[in-house]
């Protein structure tokens, strides 16, 4: 059980800075997800934590101790690789027991530990097989098992699900979340898939171009993105952005004129705004509602019916706006629709892409899975002995 601190971590390859000064705290037993587009430096950051890559500058601390100069095996971490990186010439049992074999652990003890991990992962019938005789999901579990037997203080996962097919990915996602509960360990997880980040994380770290864009709980990032990048990256389908004109600032919010002439007041803090500031409105597809009296309108270009929901892609001037509507809407392609949004669901971004602070905190923004657990523990103190 461990905490991790990163202090002003920088990584340079030649003249290119890939990590440009990252500060981060990972609490004990937290599930932290590094998410970002490819090339944002998330894998490099994880490899530096693992010790496979050295940091050009800054400090990495585990439980308060600086470990920059400690070898990867002695940091007490275990890593699950994207490619699984199983040893192809060894059986599942030998794969999982390799670290103990290197450490000189006696054979019986090794076997006992491997069996214990295999039980958690339902790998017992496969212990004598070689990796090539396993399915993708099974290989993944062996890779996780190899990490578990090391009894690490922190688990590192480097895009562990990206080689699996969609159905298996969902299943493994659930299994990983369950494993986190069961092992009660600190886990750091790298992915480019924001759905994985949203579903599993206690804390999401959004990385972009080697800097941290925002750190927060999934709901905080969803409801209160700090800037336009996070707003566009978190949430699926992507948030819609529209240029709007500033018409006034009141204590209750910022008044804007929408394309097409409608006026709205968005409850965000705009006291610092210039009178002629350029603003961008951001509304998520699921927060746009079809409404005959709505202030916005456009022509449907594409219509995707998913059954329960329908995605409408609506052309508005130069923008293609996505609307998530009810599954039963009767519209067809080329129909013109009117739509609107609840102002408290909208976001405003200034010219620099920074979000204007919301005047109302979303009630769920502080909710994390850990809070959940803490809440249940404190709610029933009698049972937790």
């Amino acid at each position: 059980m461990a905490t991790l601190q990163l202090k002003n971590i920088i990584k340079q390859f030649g003249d290119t800075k890939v990590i440009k000064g990252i500060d981060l705290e990972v609490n004990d037993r937290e599930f932290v997800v590094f998410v970002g587009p490819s090339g944002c430096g998330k894998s490099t950051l994880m490899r530096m934590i693992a010790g496979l890559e050295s940091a050009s500058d800054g400090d990495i601390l585990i439980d308060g101790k600086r470990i920059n100069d400690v070898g990867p095996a002695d940091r007490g971490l275990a890593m699950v690789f994207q490619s699984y990186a199983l040893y192809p010439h060894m059986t599942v049992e030998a794969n999982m027991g390799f670290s103990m074999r290197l450490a000189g652990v006696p054979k019986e003890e090794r076997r006992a530990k491997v069996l214990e991990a295999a039980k958690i992962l339902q790998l017992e019938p496969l212990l004598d097989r070689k990796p090539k005789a396993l399915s993708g999901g099974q290989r993944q579990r062996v890779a996780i098992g190899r990490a578990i037997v090391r009894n690490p203080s922190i688990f590192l996962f480097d895009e562990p699900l990206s080689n699996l097919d969609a159905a298996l990915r969902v299943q493994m996602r659930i299994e990983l979340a369950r494993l986190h509960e069961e092992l009660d360990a600190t886990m750091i997880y790298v992915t480019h898939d924001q759905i994985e980040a949203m579903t599993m994380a206690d804390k999401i770290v959004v990385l972009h171009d080697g800097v941290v864009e925002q750190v927060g709980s999934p709901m905080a990032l969803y409801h209160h993105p700090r800037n336009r990048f996070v707003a566009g990256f978190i949430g699926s389908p992507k948030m819609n952005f529209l240029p709007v004109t500033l018409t006034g600032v009141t204590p209750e919010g910022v008044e804007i004129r929408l394309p097409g002439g409608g006026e709205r007041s968005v409850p965000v803090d705009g006291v610092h705004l210039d009178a002629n500031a350029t603003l961008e409105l951001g509304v998520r597809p699921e927060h746009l509602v079809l409404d005959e009296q709505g202030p916005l309108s456009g022509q449907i270009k594409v219509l995707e019916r998913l059954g329960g929901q329908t995605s409408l892609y609506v052309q508005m001037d130069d923008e293609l706006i996505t609307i998530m509507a009810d599954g039963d809407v009767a519209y067809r392609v080329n129909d013109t629709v009117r739509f609107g949004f609840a102002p408290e669901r909208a976001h405003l971004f200034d010219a620099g892409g920074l979000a204007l602070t919301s005047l109302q905190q979303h009630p769920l923004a502080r909710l994390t899975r850990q809070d959940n657990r803490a809440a249940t523990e404190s709610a029933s103190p009698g049972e937790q002995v």
Partner: protein
Amino acid sequence: MTLHRNSVAPANARSLPIRQLVLTLVGWSIALIIFFPILWMVLTGFKTETAAIADPSFLFSPTLESYQAVHARSGYARFALNSVVVAFGSTFLALLIAIPSAYAMAFLPTKRTKGTLLWMLSTKMLPPVGVLVPIYLIFRDVGLLDTRTGLIIIYTLMNLPIVVWMLYTFFKDMPKDILEAGRMDGASTLQEVFFLLLPLTLPGIASTGLLSVILSWNEAFWSLNLTSSKAAPLTAYIASFSSPEGLFWAKLSAASTMAIAPILIFGWMTQKQMVRGLTFGAVK
């Protein structure tokens, strides 16, 4: 295969066998052209001296006359033993040096790694005769002339560029993740090499070793120039049949056949391994 082809592409069904026939013929022709000198040598070895210099013919009454003569003349076994010791010794030494160097180049490359590799290979383009005199003088001064040790050293140096280069490509193909996983599991560099790298690249190492053995076995230039009797391998044995008594084609052929027989059988037994290794990177 046939069923599959017929059912999927009936239009091609007629043209394909012709194409295949032509390709097969071309393949066999090339193989025969390459193999012919060896075949002719083996045949000549079973002819009498007169038949050997008569009009070329496949029809003759085979005789072991030449083999008897060759056998009577000199100790084949001694030369063969020298060949074995020198070929395997130099291969072992080359692998011993090349594995660490290839490891460093493949997994810890620097800006100059590619250059170093090319420079090493470029030494193979130099005609060996260019360094014959200096090497001969050095060998004479340190007492390595006509010793197996001397030949092992020179063959190691001769094959090292190829061995390093081949191992480098095999190591390059090894997924880096696996070594990193080993490092996370606590493996030292040596453990990484022995427990992970070597077992996983064994086919490549084997084919590299085989190639090195074959090249050393067949090498004639250095063995003829640096040995005379004690350390002379089979190449020198063959050569001894050509000069002093004039050209006795049948005996020469018989001796040559005996010289290449071991390596031919060895190569034939390991050809599967060889082909797998040599095409390792090409076809995955």
